[in-house]
């Protein structure tokens, strides 16, 4: 991987492409949609999706956002389910390294823009950072009401009872709210929003976060935003309050007890271990331990 990155760092920006791949008019259109999204937190603004050099489902919404906001002075980080070194993250990072000739990093603290697929980094974000989320289905009501014309009206009328019914049905069937990712939230007391398929473990991080949150769905052509310090509340019931996942074991690699863990199967005898999904966080924790023990 280091060879691959080294090759890319040397690769010049192809002269036949504009900075950031998209043409300026497309960027302006996306930029206007972002500004509108920021003004109406949680509301899905339609935008004109452009064809990107990757298939839908691989983060085309996220890279359109990144293409519209990135500048040469930015430090860019990409994670896929928390990891910096998976296919999606590596190729998107390489794409912008080539198209914008900018600095990339795997360190959450160093990054000014972080594009993410389905995680929020464990390290608290700071004021001035921008998070770019890749979203598959932006409409939280879509599986309840398939018609766009109707969901639009439901948002207009603030008619969100059906979502509570869905969570209630979970309780009836399982005894608890079984929704574990893409857990619906209310933004600034108004719009119902799908926080993208992040685990509900990450939902509390959205509330009054100092960083700017931008979401985009490429296939569905929707952009929505959460400005810094905005109230984001996960839906729940008085007698079934919102709660995040917990694990019986700490991370096998760094020993962390408060990060989101992935279960890794080790053999066919039922052997398994739990490791941090956020690779950067896990490495920092391990480095800290080495420093302490040294």
């Amino acid at each position, binding site marked *: 991987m280091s060879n691959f990155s080294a090759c890319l760092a040397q690769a010049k920006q192809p002269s036949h492409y504009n900075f950031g791949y998209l043409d300026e008019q497309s960027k302006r259109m996306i930029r206007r949609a972002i*500004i509108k999204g920021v003004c109406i937190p949680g509301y899905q603004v339609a935008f004109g999706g452009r064809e990107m050099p990757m298939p839908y489902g691989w983060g085309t919404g996220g890279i359109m956002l990144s293409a519209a*906001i990135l500048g040469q002075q930015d430090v860019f980080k990409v994670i896929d389910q928390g990891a910096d070194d998976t296919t999606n993250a590596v190729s998107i990072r390489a794409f912008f390294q080539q198209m914008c000739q900018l600095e990339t990093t795997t360190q959450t603290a160093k990054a000014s823009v972080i594009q993410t697929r389905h995680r929020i980094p464990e390290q608290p974000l700071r004021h001035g950072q921008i998070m770019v989320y890749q979203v598959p289905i932006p409409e939280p009501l879509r599986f309840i009401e398939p018609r766009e014309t109707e969901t639009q009206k439901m948002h*207009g009328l603030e008619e969100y009872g059906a979502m509570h019914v869905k969570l209630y049905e979970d309780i009836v069937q399982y005894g608890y709210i079984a929704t574990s990712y893409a857990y619906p939230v209310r933004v600034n007391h108004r719009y119902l929003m799908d926080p993208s398929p992040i685990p509900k473990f990450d939902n509390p991080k959205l509330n009054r976060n100092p960083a700017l949150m931008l979401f985009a769905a490429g296939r569905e052509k929707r952009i929505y935003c*959460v*400005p810094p310090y905005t109230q984001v509340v996960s839906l729940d019931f008085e007698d079934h309050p919102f709660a995040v996942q917990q694990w019986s074991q700490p991370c096998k690699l760094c020993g962390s007890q408060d990060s989101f863990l992935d279960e890794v199967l080790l053999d066919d005898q039922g052997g398994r271990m739990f490791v941090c999904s956020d690779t950067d966080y896990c490495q920092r924790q391990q480095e800290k331990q080495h420093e302490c023990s040294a």
Partner: protein
Amino acid sequence: MQAITSGFAQGVADSQFCFRHILTAMSEPGTVCQLNKHPGFMPLHAATSQVLLTLCDQDTGIYLSANLANEAELAALTDNLAFHCQAPLVVAEQADFAVVDGQEEVAMSSFKAGTHLLPETNCTLVIQTNGFHHGPLYRLTGPGIEHHKHVQLGYLSPTITEHLIAPKQAFPLGLDLIFCAGEDIIAIPRTTKVELS
């Protein structure tokens, strides 16, 4: 035909720079952001011109208030906007971006406030004011503001002040405001609650 003056020196980089500052201003209402990539098309302030250069094109109707300048100056400005943005000039009721003077009596209800189904179809009002160091002190709260913020927006006409404090439309409808003074901007989106301090 009036003389056309130059636009951004570095079109791609400068509009990205300005966009990020406008984004910061909009997502953190009350924050002063400086746009210093263009001297401005007379008679507009530098910041006003850069907001239009960054966000406007053939898809956005621009309304220019007649109170901004005299006819000859407005004609020169119109030529420059037509050349650099290709944006059509429209009446207030159809404007996506409207540029007005802070001290004029603006009929705020004439601008698009969006609809409940499509609240993003509202107008962004760009208001030229005379500085952020005088005028009444406002207290801002809402999304993008950690606790509260105090700002001065220069001397504004009663209609604009009234709109700031008691907008006619309730969220999600309303106008998004960008105040421009020289190279500086302060944005007040519709989510921000404004009180006289």
